[in-house]
């Protein structure tokens, strides 16, 4: 876990992504502080204070969350298999520990990034948004679990990178379309993807957490069945 977390912060790609998130928070907080009239206007139009303050960072996470988690972690399992370094790991710890360790390492990176982003926002606006923060963490929990499943499912890193880019772009679009479509397959997608659950009652966040946990279990089972 520690190794994954350290590796995440050592890679240029992940540093850029973390900086991008923090920068978005910083800029949106600055905009809010500099433009109290626009904020009042938005509040009077029916938006809550949370929605106004966290709109930018939440939107960035919802749109780019999948793409960025794929960018950082599409090869988190299959690279170890491809380079056969997994043989060193599997002779020391269980396959369950390997999957969970990698998951926790990557998740910790995202929690740190989101915490810093919301921290910057909170420090500048002097307001705290625990519900939105939890929604962002839950959404990224779902993304990381899904990426881990794909990395366990696809053996070649090149294929997982290609699939990651496609899915990273497609999933937010599918999520948006599914939200308003009536066809059964779109409705099914609405309930499988996390977007729908982040808009309703607070307890609904349990659903993407549960789906993410299922993805994690599937990743463990997939790795357990493999000859390495």
């Amino acid at each position, binding site marked *: 876990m*520690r*190794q994954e977390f350290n590796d995440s912060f050592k890679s240029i790609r992940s540093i850029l992504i973390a900086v991008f998130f923090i920068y978005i928070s910083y800029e949106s907080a600055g905009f809010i502080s500099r433009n109290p009239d626009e904020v009042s206007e938005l509040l009077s139009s029916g938006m809550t204070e949370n929605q106004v303050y966290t709109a930018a960072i939440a939107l960035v996470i919802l749109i780019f969350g999948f793409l960025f988690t794929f960018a950082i972690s599409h090869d988190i399992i299959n690279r170890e298999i491809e*380079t*056969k*370094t997994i*043989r*060193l*790991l*599997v*002779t*020391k*710890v*269980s396959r369950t520990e390997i999957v969970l360790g990698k998951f926790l390492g990557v998740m910790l990176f995202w929690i740190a990034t989101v915490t810093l982003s919301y921290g910057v926002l909170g420090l500048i606006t002097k307001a705290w948004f625990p519900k939105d923060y939890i929604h962002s963490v839950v959404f990224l929990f779902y993304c990381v679990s899904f990426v881990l499943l794909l990395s366990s499912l696809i053996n070649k890193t090149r294929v997982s990178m290609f699939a990651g880019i496609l899915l990273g772009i497609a999933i937010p679009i599918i999520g948006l379309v599914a939200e308003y479509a009536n066809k059964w397959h779109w409705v099914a997608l609405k309930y499988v993807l996390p977007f729908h659950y982040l808009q309703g009652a607070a307890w609904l966040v349990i659903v993407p957490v549960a789906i993410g946990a299922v993805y994690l279990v599937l990743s463990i089972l997939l790795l357990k*069945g493999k*000859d*390495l």
Partner: protein
Amino acid sequence: MTDIIQVDQLKKSYGSSEVLKGINFTVRQGEVFGIVGHNGAGKSTLIHVLTGITHKSSGGFRIFGQPESGLDAVKKRMGVMPDTSNLYEQMRGVDFLRYMGRLKQKTYSGADYLSLLEQVGLADAEQKRIKSYSFGMRKKISIAQALLGNPELIFLDEPTSGIDPESAIHIRNLVLKLKQQGKTIILTSHNLDELDRICDRVAMISDGVINKLGTPQELKTGKAESMEMLLRTKPVLQESQVRMLSEKLSLDVRYAGLGKDHVLLKVATEEDVPLLARALIEHDFLLYEVKVRERSLEEVFMEK
């Protein structure tokens, strides 16, 4: 002596190709157990199955009394040097060991890692990145990571193949030192001379089955169809004379070759040697040297 490993009718197939076709053996506590075989004979597959890298197809095995399903519980007691594993190229030697050490959930100081690197002969390469390591250095660091956590059972898959003689001697001495410390070691090799020198028992694996198993001495002396005898006489013994003596003594003695000043004969048993020597003296041969040549493991291995 306790059996650390018990393997029973172990089979492994990849698709339609059966690599292990029913392997049986036990490894006792504190012994160095060698596995030898041609490329593709199934040595590495056997190590992979026993160490949890791949799954068996049928049959079973127990390590420290645990079946395959309980292998995770004894991994901390095992050290494994896999054969073709790539290492983490970007890491420095000492960082690689630190990472591997953390997986073993053992706390080491920097001095501990240095001492481990010294043991394998890599003390001066601790700060170098693994990508700059030679093939021999990679083997050594791979052995070092297998020794992390002071394991009771160590698997070494071809630890000396492809490395220079000096490093190979260093590794052989290390294996012997580990044996003195009471470790149980399983190693595979193509070097039969090496196995002869360091192993308590050797299993010869061919086409997915163990066809010979025993101590090097047992393998060299047991079940031999014939043994080779060197004779230095004056005059040098001729092939026709060998045939004549064989008939006269009713022995199965065959002419096997002619040296500069000696002949090589094949005799059926060790008991034939003094009978033959006495007959030669009786036939006025001057006998300068009589030597029974022990078969090498290589010859045993090559025998069908």
